[in-house]
């Protein structure tokens, strides 16, 4: 109300410049523009990225993770590290060299560079962790989604779940990889064969929680098929749940692989792995501690950075943190 006199005043001041009809231009009614509601543009993933990168610890961990991943997958291409290579086995001078400019992490009993061994081993460990996690997550989400909406399947699956969760995972993995024999894909199978049940169960709980919310009742009333309700109405809400599961299972799979290689089951004899290194060098803990501690530290850095980046991504992908 206050600006009305103001406007008339200014109108009086501009009496000399008369407005003519030529100053105006006819604009057709744009039905599209009237429909548009003017709000700041919101992009879910943009918002996730904003929250994710606002945390300094996350950025530091992400940097470590990228370095570790890069080294594990690029360095072995150039180093040509192979467990079966025994070229320097008779060169006494090359054995047990402490870390130096030439051998950054020193050399082992065969005169081979530990630096090369660690990245070759890390590549196996990370590959197993990532592949197993992808398999477990895909199967877990699909089965969990079906499990959540079907009462018949729920009955059967709950019984299966109750039996499996009573058994320590490591017991299943170790017995499975024993019976399947050694090998990369056998190990992946042994680790994933029951682990997806955990992911599926947590997805099932959330699907059940969301499926009877009002918006889904409304959607169903409007005739949306169940498949569409699950994939379009429910699963997008579970992004942060899924990411949390991923960030938990990645380090745990790496941990199982390390223990199995440590024990001597799982991977075949010519596959390098961090668990094998730790097992091999545990006796050198006091005599050549670098041989033991470098693999342990590398392992810890990989799993910690994976875990923290994953957890913070899960937090960031939770829409409730975007306000």
């Amino acid at each position, binding site marked *: 109300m206050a600006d009305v006199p103001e406007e008339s005043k200014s109108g009086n001041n501009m009496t000399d410049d008369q407005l003519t009809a030529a100053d105006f231009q006819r604009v057709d009614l744009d039905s599209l523009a009237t429909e548009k509601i003017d709000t700041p543009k919101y992009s879910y993933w943009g918002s996730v990225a904003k929250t994710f990168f606002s945390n300094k610890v996350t950025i530091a961990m992400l940097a470590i993770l990228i370095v570790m991943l890069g080294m594990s997958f690029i360095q072995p291409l150039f180093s040509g590290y192979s467990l079966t290579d025994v070229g320097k086995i008779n060169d006494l001078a090359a054995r047990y060299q402490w870390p130096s400019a030439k051998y950054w992490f020193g050399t082992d009993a065969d005169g081979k560079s530990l630096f090369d061994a660690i990245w070759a081993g890390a590549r196996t460990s990370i590959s197993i962790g990532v592949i197993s996690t992808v398999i477990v997550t895909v199967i877990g989400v699909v089965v969990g989604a079906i499990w959540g909406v079907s009462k018949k399947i729920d009955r059967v699956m709950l019984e299966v779940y109750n039996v499996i969760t009573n058994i320590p995972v490591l017991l299943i993995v170790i017995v499975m990889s024993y019976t399947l*024999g050694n090998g990369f894909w056998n190990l992946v199978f042994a680790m994933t064969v029951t682990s997806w049940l955990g992911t599926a169960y947590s997805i099932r709980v959330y699907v059940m929680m969301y499926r009877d919310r009002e918006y889904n009742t409304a959607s169903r009333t409007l005739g949306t098929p169940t498949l569409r309700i699950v994939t379009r109405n429910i699963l997008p809400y579970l992004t942060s749940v899924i990411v949390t599961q991923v960030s938990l299972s990645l380090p745990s799979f790496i941990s199982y692989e390390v223990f199995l290689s440590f024990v001597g089951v799982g991977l075949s004899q010519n596959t390098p792995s961090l668990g094998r290194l730790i097992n091999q060098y545990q006796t050198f803990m006091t005599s050549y501690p670098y041989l033991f501690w470098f693999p342990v530290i590398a392992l810890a850095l990989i799993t910690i950075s994976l875990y*923290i980046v994953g957890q913070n991504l899960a937090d960031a992908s939770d829409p409730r943190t975007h306000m």
Partner: protein
Amino acid sequence: MKKYLFFRVLRSIVSIFLVTTIAYIMVFSMVPRRDIFKQDPMIQKLANDPDSLTDYKENAYRKMNYIDYFDTKSLIAKVEAEHPDAKVTTAHTAANAKLFKEWANDNGYKLNRYSVSKNYYVTRELPLLERLGRFYGNLIQIDTPWAIHDKSNPKLARYLRIENDKTVGWAVVGSGTRYRYQIYFNGSFPFIHQNIIKFNLGTSYPTFAGNAVTDVIGGRQGQTVSTKYKFPNGQVMNTADNVYTRQYQSPSRRNQMSYERYEDDYTNVDQVNQDPSMIGTSVRAGFWALILSYVIGIPIALGMARLKGKWFDRLFTGVVTVLMAVPGLALIYTFRYVLSVAGAPDSFPTKGASAFSSWVGPTVVLALLSVSGIVIWFRRYMVDQQQSDYVKFAKSKGLTDREIYRKHIFKNASIPVVQGIPSNIIGLISGAMMTETVFAMPGMGKMLPDSIIAHNNSVVIALVFIFTTIGVFSVLLGDVLMSIVDPRIQLAVSGDEQNG
């Protein structure tokens, strides 16, 4: 409630049965059977004697329930039993061969010949179902006065009676039974012991070859110890014999000295060893680790919840994150290193089971492995409680923080403590596998990787059975405890809801 518990126990038994069966089928059908000889030194020793090697191998398969096997001598006995009139010898005559072949065909056996002596022997592949049947059929053995049938000892008395025995005091004493003392009392926990019901999980091979798996896992280990006993013949002397486990021994194999000492046919005795059994070692370490993990975890979680967002909370959030993320093996080595710097032995056998300091390392490490889970779970719970109405009300009444924590929140806190116990026990089993292996602690956790490497399939199955039983029943126990601690929880209803 009773009905619910009954069905719950029944379901638990079914799931143990299922898991063990699946493990049995997988291990015995997928692991190549010749792998059991990989670590066996006897194979090298017998390499120059192919016949003995064949005999040894077939015997080993028989012990592991892969096949039925009769060597030449037992084959002749079998054939003679079926044809009492025929004269069967080891000679390689056509008549003998015909009889052997006939018997083998009739009974589904395969006739083979040793490679050097050319003598005959028979084998029969046991189908998986029959093997499973034998495994479960022999699983529980009940001792009765009619258990022993010995042709060389037809006058064996058969009775069960309560006696004041000269050696063990008041006991239920049996004759014709496998064990002499059916029920007896002594000073060791749980004070009343029985020999009536025994588990039989097969025979261990190739490690601990020939021993019953239950003895390998449940029998005491280490050096023998002597105790002073008064024997039935009146003699008082020190002996390493475990007089409580006297078992029947046929007079044909009797040791005259023991017979004079015990004055009956029960002369087969175990020795008393000083160290706890594998299962005892694991249970002891696991029990104290469970308590220790709560003793460490709960105060930290309480502090974190009370000082939420302060430096204490943030510091331990960091610590817990590291504990969660770093692989167990790396953690165990790091903790072991720290503990060994502090003076604890870094390997269990260095000082043995009798030294307290040997137990410190494995137990503390085992506890630390499960602390992170307890802290996260308990902190979350306490933080949620702080927001609850009853705490706000107590605050508005003017109660101090101390009073609210002590009198209100703490009572409710027993619920998550109990709730977490089953998953902690299951976690401890996994933790024990790693910890015991690293510390070379002679427990069940170390035995599993060991027996897998040695291809000791019977022990693998037995350990799967034991671990699954512990897991299933700890979950059951946790649920029952929950309903006792928190009367609002009604198992029967929640159980039905789960089904519906």
